[in-house]
C-alpha cells in the first residue's frame, strides 16, 4: 500500500512537472520543473529496486547537467518580450495531437495485458550487477561512449575557442569570407 502511494505521488508529480516544463514561459522555472521531474523519476527507479541508477540519475542530471542548464539559462536571462511572436501556432496543436496519440498508444500497450510483472533476480540493480553488465556484455558500447565524449569535447573546443592572436593578425580583412 505504501508502495502504491509513493508510486502515485511520484508519478503524478513527474507528469505535472513535465507538463509545466513545456508550458511555462519562464525558462528558469522550466528548468527547475525539469529537475523536479528528474527527482520524481529517481523515486520511481528506487521503487523498481534500481537504487544505483536512481542515485546516478540525481548526481548526473540534477547535480551536473541541470546545474549547467540553469547556469546557461540564467546567464541568457531571456525575458518574455525576447521570444517574439509565436510563428507557427498550429505546431502547438499538432504537438498536442501527436502527444495524445502517443499517450493513447502507450495506454493501449500497457492496458493490453500482455505486459506482465517479472520477478527480479537476486542483486538486481546493485552496483555489482550493473558493473558486470557494463564491463561484460556491454563492454564495447561502454568503451565507445568514452570515444563519443572525447569527440564531443573536441568539437566543443573547436566551436568555442577564440582565435589566437597570431591568427587574427594573419587574417584577411573582415568580410572577405563567410560574411556573405
Amino acid at each position, binding site marked *: 500500500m505504501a508502495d502504491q502511494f509513493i508510486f502515485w505521488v511520484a508519478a503524478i508529480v513527474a507528469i505535472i512537472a513535465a507538463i509545466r516544463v513545456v508550458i511555462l514561459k519562464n525558462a528558469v522555472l522550466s528548468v527547475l520543473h525539469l529537475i523536479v521531474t528528474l527527482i520524481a523519476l529517481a523515486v520511481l527507479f528506487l521503487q523498481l529496486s534500481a537504487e544505483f541508477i536512481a542515485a546516478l540519475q540525481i548526481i548526473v542530471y540534477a547535480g551536473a547537467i541541470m546545474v549547467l542548464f540553469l547556469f546557461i539559462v540564467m546567464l541568457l536571462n531571456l525575458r518574455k518580450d525576447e521570444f517574439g511572436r509565436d510563428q507557427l501556432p498550429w505546431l502547438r496543436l499538432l504537438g498536442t495531437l501527436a502527444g495524445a496519440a502517443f499517450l493513447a498508444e502507450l495506454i493501449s*500497450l500497457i492496458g493490453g495485458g*500482455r*505486459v506482465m510483472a517479472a520477478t527480479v533476480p537476486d542483486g538486481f540493480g546493485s552496483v555489482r550487477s550493473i558493473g558486470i553488465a557494463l564491463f561484460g556484455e556491454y563492454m*564495447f*558500447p561502454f568503451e565507445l561512449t568514452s570515444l563519443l565524449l572525447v569527440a*564531443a569535447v*573536441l568539437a566543443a573546443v573547436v566551436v568555442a575557442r577564440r582565435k589566437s592572436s597570431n591568427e587574427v593578425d594573419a587574417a*584577411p580583412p573582415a568580410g572577405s*569570407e563567410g*560574411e556573405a
Partner: protein
Amino acid sequence: MTPFNLTQFYADWATILPECFLLLWACVITGAAVLGRTDESKSGTFAIWTIIGTLATAVWVAVTQDGAAFGGTFVFDRLAVVFKEVILAGVILTAAASVGTVSRLRAHRGEYYGMILFSAVGMMLMVSATELLTLYIALELSTVTLFVLAAYHKTNRKSAEAGLKYVILGGISSAILLYGVAILYGLTGTTELARISQGIQRQFMASGSFPPGLALALLLILAGFGFKLALAPFHMWAPDVYEGAPTPITAFLSVASKAAALAAFLRVFFVGGQPAQLIWIQAIAALAALAMIVGNATAIVQTNIKRMLAYSSVAQIGYMLVGAVALDPWGATSISYYAMAYLFANMGAFVCVIAFAERTGSEEISDFSGLSRRSPILAGFFALFLLSLAGVPPTAGFLAKYYVFAAAIQKGYLWLVLVGVATSVVALYYYATVIMKMYFPAEQTEGGFPVARTLTIVLAVSALGVLLLGILPGPVVDWIKAAAQSFVPPT
C-alpha cells in the same frame, strides 16, 4: 560471464583495427591542430593518407579476420566491408574537395580534418554495429562532429543557423530513435539485432500476433532513421543545413553520413525487424513514395543549387528505399548499389558547386548559365553527374534505378515503381534545366576560369566511378550481392 580469453581478446581488437587506426590519426591531427604544433596546410594531406591507410587496414582485416567481435556487438562482415569502403571513398573525396575551402578559413584549419576523421570513425563503427546500443553511440559519434562542421563558418549567419538546426533536429531524432530502441528492449529483453529477431518470432509463434507496442517501436526507430537519412516527411532540416554548411561538408553529409545511416537501417530492419515485416514494409513503401514526390516536386522551384541538390537527395533516398520493400538479398543489393552510384554522382555534383563557387562566389542556378563557354570541363562534369542523378544511361544512376525498381516489381509493388518512374521524369526536368542553362544560355556571359587541380582530380575520380559503375557493373554487383546474401536471413 565468460572467462577472459586472450586469443579472443586479440581477435576482437584486430577486427576493429581500421577504426583504431583512423581514430589514432584523428586524435593526432586534431591534437596537433589544437596545440598549434603543425603547419595546418599539411593536415589535409595527412588526413587523406590516414584514410588510405585505413582502407588498407580494412582490406587486411577483411581478408584475415572474419565474423563477430565483442560478444556479437560488432561484426566485420561483407556488408560492413562494402559500406566501409563507400564511406571511406566519400571521406577521401570530401577531404580532397575541402582543400580550397579550408585554405580560406581564418582559424581551426587542422581541426577541420580531425573532425571529419572522427565522424568517419563513427560511421565505420555504425555500419558494423549489430547491437542497438553500439549502433546508437556510433551514430552519435558520427553526428556530434558533423554539428560543428556544419557550423564551421561560425561568423556566417547561415552556417551558424545550419549548425544549430542540425543540433536541435539531430537531438530530437536521437531521442525518438532511443525511445523506439527502449520499447524494443522492453519487448524482447535484448539489444542484439539477431536476438531481437528471434524474440519477435518466438512471441509471434506463441500468440499468433505481434507483441503490442512493436509497431510503435519500429515506427519510432523508422522516424529516427528518417531524420538521419533526410527522408520525407523528416527532411525539413536538410535544405537549410545543406545550404548553410560549407559545401564539402554538405557533400559529406549527403553522401557518407547517409551511406552509414543506410547500412544501419538495413541491419536494423532486414535483420532485427525481419519477422515483423508486415508492420513496417507498408510504412516504408509509403515513406519512399512520399520522399520521391516531395523531394522532386520541391526541387523544381529552387533557385539555389545547393538547395536543389538537397531536395534532390531527399528524393534519391526515396528511390533507395524502394529497394527496401523487397526484403530479400536482391533488395539489399540494389540499395547498396544505389548508394554507391549516388556516392559518386552526388559527391561529384557538389564538388562542381564548390569549383564554381570558388571562382564566382555564387551558388545560384541562374549564374550557371553559359558555363559551357566559361569552363567546358566543369560544365561537362556537372552535366554527367546530373544525368547520373537523373538516371540516364549509360551512367550508374540508370542501373541503380533499374535495380531498385526491378527488386520492387518482383515483390509486386508496381504502384511504387510507377510513382518512381513518374517522379524520375519530373527529376529529369529540373536536372535538364540546369544542363540546358549551362549549354544554351539566354545571353552570353564572359570570363573563363580554370578549376583547381585537386578538385579536378576529385571530379575525374567521381566521373570515372559514375561511368565504370554504369558500363561495367558486373564485378561490383557480384561483390555486393555476395555481401547481401551473407547478411539477409533467408525468407
